[in-house]
């Protein structure tokens, strides 16, 4: 597990990010709530103070007159170092009295009667909360309108808001800490089976292909089953390989035993004619053994599922001609007439040239070995195909599929290795081609056809 990418880290990040956003929103909301609560509480004080002032306004000597009770202002000054301002304004907007010329409020009053308007203003560089009360004298004969403006600086409000918010913050942080702890525990618990699976795989003997046996939650059980399927496939491949190696060893040991025995026998004799006889026999056996070893290599390569050589566009006509050029002399010496029937148009497929050459070589070799006199390589156009037709004894239909198995030989076959057709079959499969066997032209001999898929380039 690299540090850069881990499941638990991903889970943590994707769970923590929304949690963080949520927490921030809660903090923000708590802040606004604290502000609102503080404002509500202090606005009550502004209301009470302005009311206390308004009640003291009287009409004397044709003008408004205020005798301000100290309590009216004291209630606005809390423990914090707040500054309190007031002013009384008459109907013409003139300031009658007060300790500061507070600005007016332009908003229309909701009713004509007694109203109070709050707002936050910055006045002379000071951020204050102001209340403007518009009212009239409560006199039965004179109802002179006037305005009381009251304001105080925000220290008290801010202190209260901060206090309220701090209480909330502590709670939110505690919740967040709890959530993170719970998250970590949950992730650990959820990922524990993964750790168990990793340990189980790591502690395995690399040579065993036995299936993994451990109880896992559903998602990991699927993974385990997939791994087990792969292991089962590998077991089959290995069993196949072991059988093949056993067969191969047997196949190679037999001719070597023959060679050794023949040499031993010759050494016991003194007749040069017998020696010559032995040498001829030994030469034949050794070249057959060498060919067998080569075929075993080809087959092993073809059976390797990891072996995927590059395919390139090829002309089947050219491949067929080349095969004739290569094998004609050997066939001619053995008294076999090898020929080619190319297609009128050039037939192109995607393939591996040397594999097709090897397939044709094996098929020509087989035909020659089994007593054909005439062998023809035929190129077909629709679908693209390569066929080898011979006039030999052929193979009865019932036994044709058997011939594709490695080391399978007919009983009367003394010379072949039983690998040729298996190799051709392997090559056909790497080309996605179908290998078909039928009777040759006129029902005589054998025709082996490689039919390639039609997706010619």
């Amino acid at each position, binding site marked *: 597990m690299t540090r850069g990418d881990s499941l638990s880290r991903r889970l943590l990040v994707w769970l923590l990010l929304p949690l963080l956003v949520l927490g921030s929103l809660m903090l923000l909301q708590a802040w606004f709530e604290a502000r609102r609560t503080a404002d509500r509480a202090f606005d009550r004080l502004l209301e009470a103070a302005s009311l206390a002032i308004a009640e003291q306004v009287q009409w004397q000597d044709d003008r408004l007159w205020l005798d301000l009770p100290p309590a009216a202002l004291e209630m606005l000054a809390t423990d914090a170092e707040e500054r309190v301002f007031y002013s009384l304004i008459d109907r013409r907007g003139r300031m009658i009295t007060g300790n500061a010329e507070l600005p007016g409020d332009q908003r229309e009053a909701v009713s004509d009667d007694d109203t109070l308007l709050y707002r936050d203003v910055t006045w002379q560089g000071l951020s204050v909360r102001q209340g403007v009360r518009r009212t009239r004298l409560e006199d039965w004969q004179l109802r002179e309108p006037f305005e009381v403006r009251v304001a105080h600086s925000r220290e008290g409000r801010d202190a209260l808001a901060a206090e309220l918010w701090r209480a909330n913050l502590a709670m939110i942080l505690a919740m967040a800490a709890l959530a993170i702890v719970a998250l970590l525990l949950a992730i650990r618990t959820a990922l524990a089976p993964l750790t168990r699976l990793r340990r189980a795989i790591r502690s395995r003997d690399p040579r065993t292909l036995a299936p993994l046996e451990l109880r896992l939650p559903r998602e990991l059980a699927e993974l385990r089953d997939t791994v087990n399927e792969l292991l089962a496939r590998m077991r089959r491949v290995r069993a196949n390989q072991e059988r093949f190696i056993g067969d191969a060893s047997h196949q190679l040991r037999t001719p070597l035993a023959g060679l050794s025995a023949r040499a031993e026998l010759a050494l016991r004799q003194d007749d040069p004619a017998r020696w010559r006889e032995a040498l001829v026999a030994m030469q034949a056996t*050794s*070249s057959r053994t*060498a060919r067998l070893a*080569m075929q075993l*290599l*080809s087959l092993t*390569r073809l059976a390797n599922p990891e072996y995927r*050589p590059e395919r390139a566009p090829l002309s089947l006509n050219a491949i067929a*001609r080349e095969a*004739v*050029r290569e094998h*004609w*002399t050997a066939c*001619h010496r053995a008294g076999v*007439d*090898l*020929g*080619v*029937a*190319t297609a009128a148009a050039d037939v192109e497929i995607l393939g591996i*040239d*040397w*594999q097709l*050459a*090897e397939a044709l070589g094996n098929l020509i070799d087989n035909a020659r070995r089994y007593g054909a006199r005439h062998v*023809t*390589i035929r190129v077909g156009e629709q679908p693209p195909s390569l066929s080898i037709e011979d006039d030999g004894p052929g193979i009865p239909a019932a036994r044709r599929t058997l011939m594709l198995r490695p080391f399978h030989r007919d009983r009367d076959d003394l010379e072949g290795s039983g690998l040729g057709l298996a190799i051709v079959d392997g090559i056909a499969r790497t080309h996605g081609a179908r290998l078909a066997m039928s009777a040759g032209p006129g029902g005589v001999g054998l025709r082996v056809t490689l039919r390639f898929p039609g997706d010619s380039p």
Partner: protein
Amino acid sequence: MTLLLVEDDALLAETLTETLRLQGHEVCCLDDGSAAHERLAVPGHGLALVLLDLNLPGCGGLEVLEALRAHDRATPVLILTARGAVEDRVRGLDLGADDYLAKPFALDELEARVRALLRRRSPAAALTAGPLTLDIRQQRFTLEGEPLTLPPREQRLLACLMQHAGTPVDKARLAEEAFQGDAMGDNAIEVYVHRLRKRLAGSAVALRTVRGLGYLLEAE
């Protein structure tokens, strides 16, 4: 004219050296890839032909070949190897080998290939196929010591077949050699081949038909 044989199997090396010496060649034999690399990597090795195994101790045969081809493209190289797969053959030929023999091979085959490579190196004044010879400079044929006069097209056809004696030659190629681009049907080639066959009849050299492909000149 020394031949270099690089082969690590003692029995095979001994047999091949003996065979080539009996053919009248001087043979130098190395059994190790590094020694071969040392000998071939620098100019002035003075060899007429290199017979090279691919599976060598010390240094791989393909590496040796690459080192040789880095400075010398002329000296022919014949690869001998147990890796019979055609894939390896292609790789060897791509790297600049001239020919390839998969082990095991018949000694006859080896001798023929060595002869062919040496001939290619110093183009002979004459081509021979059994009793038939062609004096290349004068374009004159002799059959069993007797001069054989031929019309130009038959002459060119036979010369082409002689160049590739022992291997089948495509009809298309023969047509091009004989008629040098003139459009002529396959039937025309057949006529000329028929005539040549009549001229060669009774001698130890035969003109064989390769069904569907072309013809081949073979000394019996």
